[in-house]
Each structure stands twice: as structure tokens, then as C-alpha cells.
């Protein structure tokens, strides 16, 4: 049996007396596309922060490709091959769009198999319909375009694991479609993805496995159809 790409064992993260993530264990295999859902405050983003090194869990262990990355600095985790996009806008407002992609690849692998990052970056921008904005500062882009840029930064690094935290939240329907198309393309390309989303129909249409969190714990984990019919999930998440 091959080693899972990501293995989380008994991870707990507390803020004061509140356990935002409570003894969570899960494993994700290579090429899996996993949806992570749950009501606001269920611990999804905290768990993502623990995986990416932004937060250090009090208990438990996180292994990536068999290597212990628990509490490792975010830049070390990123170098192992984990890329993420953020729930809120996280970019460099005064740097150009192209600069963002150059930064993303500065310490990573060769860009999309090409020799110079510029060519790869231009190609990616073209695919995402951002070419005309290549030289503009990110601060001049629309909200949705900046979300797309966040995905582009994650993608251009060719990570082993992509974690997308609410990629379509707050984005206008037209750009949201572009983001969904990009997610669909990634999902069918064999890319391992953890997708955190509130748009349940969207998640279900993209993932092969659904994990539901509530009050810091995992209450369901399985095929989307099974999970949707789980009484605990319906109670905690769908409210019926």
C-alpha cells in the first residue's frame, strides 16, 4: 500500500479553552480531489492553517509524503509541495500580475516545464484570460481577477497538493465560472486538491470525496452521495 500524500493524526488546535480543531485524523491519497465543508466556525480554515504551517497544533502529527511537517514554518511547508489559495484576498497589491507569478516560481520548480518563468507565466495568464493585465499592479484588478490570480500563483508552482479555500466566494458569476472551469480542469488532470467551499452543489460536482466538519471535528467522510444522506451531516450542516 502506497504512503498517503497527506496524513493527519489526532491534530488539535485550541484558542483559549475552545478547541477549534479537535483531534482530527484523516489521510488523502495522491490524485484525490477532496471537498472540505462545514458551517462557519467548524474549524476548516484552522485545519488548513495547521497543515500549511500558519498555525502550530498543540497535539497530533501532520505528515506529507511520509515526512513529519507538524509545526514547520509556512515557507518550508510550501517548499515540500503544498500550495494554497486564500479565503480572503492575499496578494501583492503594488506588484504586477506577472511579478506575482515570478515570485511564485522563484523558489519552486521549473514553470510548466518551460525553461524561463516568463514564458510559462505568460502562457498561464493567457489560459486564465489575464494576459491583458500582465503588467498592471494587482491592486488594480477586480476582486474576481485577484482570486484567479491567487489560483494561478498556486498552480504555476506545480504543487503536489493544492488547497483552495473558498475560491469563488464573493466573485461575480462570470469570473466564478472561469474559476470553476479552472478547478474542473485541475480536478481532471490528476492534481491532488483539498477544496474548501460553501457552495455545496459546486463541491459535489467537482470532488470524489467529501469531508464534513462541525465544532472542530470530522462528522462524515466519504463519497458525496453517502455523505449527503448521512443524518448527522443533515442535522449539523443542512439543518434538517
Amino acid at each position, binding site marked *: 500500500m502506497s504512503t498517503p500524500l497527506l496524513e493527519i493524526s489526532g491534530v488539535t488546535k485550541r484558542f483559549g479553552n475552545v478547541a477549534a480543531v479537535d483531534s482530527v485524523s484523516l489521510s488523502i491519497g495522491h490524485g484525490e480531489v477532496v471537498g472540505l465543508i462545514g458551517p462557519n466556525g467548524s474549524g476548516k480554515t484552522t485545519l488548513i492553517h495547521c497543515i*500549511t504551517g*500558519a498555525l502550530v497544533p498543540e497535539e497530533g502529527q501532520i505528515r506529507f509524503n511520509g515526512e513529519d511537517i507538524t509545526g514547520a*514554518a*509556512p*515557507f518550508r511547508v*510550501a*517548499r515540500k509541495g503544498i*500550495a*494554497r489559495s*486564500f479565503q480572503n484576498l*492575499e*496578494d*501583492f*497589491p*503594488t*506588484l504586477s500580475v506577472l*511579478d506575482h507569478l*515570478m*515570485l*511564485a516560481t*522563484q*523558489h*519552486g520548480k521549473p514553470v510548466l516545464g518551460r525553461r524561463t518563468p516568463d514564458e510559462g507565466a505568460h502562457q498561464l495568464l493567457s489560459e486564465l484570460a489575464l494576459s491583458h493585465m500582465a503588467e498592471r499592479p494587482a491592486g488594480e484588478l477586480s476582486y474576481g481577477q485577484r482570486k484567479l490570480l491567487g489560483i494561478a*500563483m498556486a498552480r504555476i*508552482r506545480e504543487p503536489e497538493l493544492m488547497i483552495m479555500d473558498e475560491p469563488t466566494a464573493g466573485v461575480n458569476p462570470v469570473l466564478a465560472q472561469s474559476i470553476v472551469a479552472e478547478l474542473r480542469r485541475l480536478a481532471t488532470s490528476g492534481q491532488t486538491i483539498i477544496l474548501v467551499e460553501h457552495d455545496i452543489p459546486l463541491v459535489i460536482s467537482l470532488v470524489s470525496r467529501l469531508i464534513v466538519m462541525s465544532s472542530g471535528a470530522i462528522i462524515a467522510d466519504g463519497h458525496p452521495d453517502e455523505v449527503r444522506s448521512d443524518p448527522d451531516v443533515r442535522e449539523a450542516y443542512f439543518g434538517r
Partner: protein
Amino acid sequence: MKLARILGVVLAVILVGLPAIIGTGHAGNIGVVALLFVMLGVSFNLIFGMTGYLALTHATSFGLGAYIAALGSTKAGVSFPLTLLAGAAGAALFSLPVGTLAFRRVRGFPFAIVTLGITITMWIVADHWMPVTRGPMGLYGIPRPTFLRQLFPGSVGYFYMGVILTGIIAAICWFIVRSDVGRVLRGIKDNEGMLSSLGVDTYRYKLSVYVLASFFAGTTGAFYAHYLTVVSPDVFWLYWISIPLVVVHVAGLGRFWAVIGVAVALAVVPEYLRASQAYQQLLFGLLLVGVVTLMPNGIGGWWAARRRRSR
């Protein structure tokens, strides 16, 4: 920034030609002050302008460079090039533990406060460590390189040496600003957390550029000590903090060519207005308030935005 570059080159040509044209020591003196401002400005731009970290220890590095050069030449009889190097190296060495501690522990406003604390401490040490610094009396009799006096009158020879030194420092700073490293430094200023999540060890970049900026500030301090031939604890204090701060803020953070332009203007204009140092500081203060209020991104930022809009 094509126009800004042309302006920078024109200013550089004026700098080079001015003393020779006028042929007096006074023009050379103004030129040396301009070069001091440029060296401090471009080096401070590396750390504050590019990363946004307000390292007020730039004055400490300048003061250390000045005192090390003064002590080396007056007490140990060390020659000019070596005192210059020792001043620079001393400032860089001092900045290493300071940066190691500060960059690990604090960001933003607290970082500025930590560096301000160090600056105050070093000023007090220079003012009270009588056996070494001679306190408020300072150190005097620091020699200027003798070979220059034979070639040029007054300060003109020293000015030309400064042009070479400034050229080297500015060229290195320009190379960094334009390189991939420069992009990372700008990224630190915009969103350091995001940069870490892209796999960039921001701590290493910050520390490296801080030590390098301190090295250049130390060089500038040593150059200043040999120019003025006297150093006092004031080299650690307000005037030498305000100069790089005003230059970089008025020019705009990270605006290399604007930094050079503003540095030269701030050195030359008060001289022609015959303003004393007190009036200069008044001018700097008013300029800082005016520019920060009316042009938050400085003159360089305002110019770049204007050009973008006109495209």
C-alpha cells in the same frame, strides 16, 4: 521611469562637473554633502523603501562607521581605505545580532521602536564612554587622504572620490532593486505572510538586506568622518536619522531614481538658501509632512501613477 532615469543621469553629470566648472572648494563641499545623502538614501531605500521595515538603526550604522574610522585613523594610524572598510564592516557586524533578534521577534511598528531604542542607546554610549569616544568633545584630527590634496583644491578631490564610492554603492543597490531579490523585497513590503506561503524564507532576505544596508551606511559614516575630520555623538542622532527617512519618504518607498533626485535636491537647495542645519531640519520636517499628506506614495509614486493614468 525613463524620464526619471534621464533626470538621474543629468543630476549625476552636474554632480561630476560642478566642482570642476566652478573650481572652488565650496561647490565641492556641497557635492560631498549631496553624495552623503545619496549614499544614505539608496542604502536606506534597500531596507525601508523595499521591505517597509523602518530600520532607524541606519543612523547607528552611520555613527559606528564614523567612530570606527575616527578611532582607527587617530588612535591606530590605520590608512584611509582600511578605515573605510573597517567602518563598513563594524556597522555590518553590529547589525547582524540586532537584525537576527529584531526580525525574529517583531514586525511593523514594534520593529521601528526596537531600532529606535538601539539608536538612542548608541547615542548615549557615544556621549558617555569618555575613554573611547571622549564624550561630547568628540574625536578630532581625523586625516583626509593626502594624495587628493595634491591633485585637487579644497574638497574637490574628496568629492570625486565620493562620486566613485557613491557610484559603487548606488550601482549595487540598483542591481538589487531590479533583480529577483528586489521583487522579493517588494513582496515583503506588500504581504510578507503570503510570500512565506510561496516558499520564500523572508527572514533570510530581510536579514541579508539589512546587514548590507548597514554596511553601506557604515561606509558612508566613515567617508563622512574623514571629510569633516571631526566626529561627535550627534552622528548617531536626529539629523542623521531624519535625512534617509525624509529622502526615501519624499521620493517614495522603493523609488530608486527618485531617491537619488531627492537626496541631491535636499543637499543642494538648502545650501543655496544659505540655511543653517536647524533650518534644514525645519525644511525636512515640513517637506515630510507635506509630501506624506499630499502624495502618500512620494514624488516617485505620484509620478508613476500619473504616467500609468496617461497611458
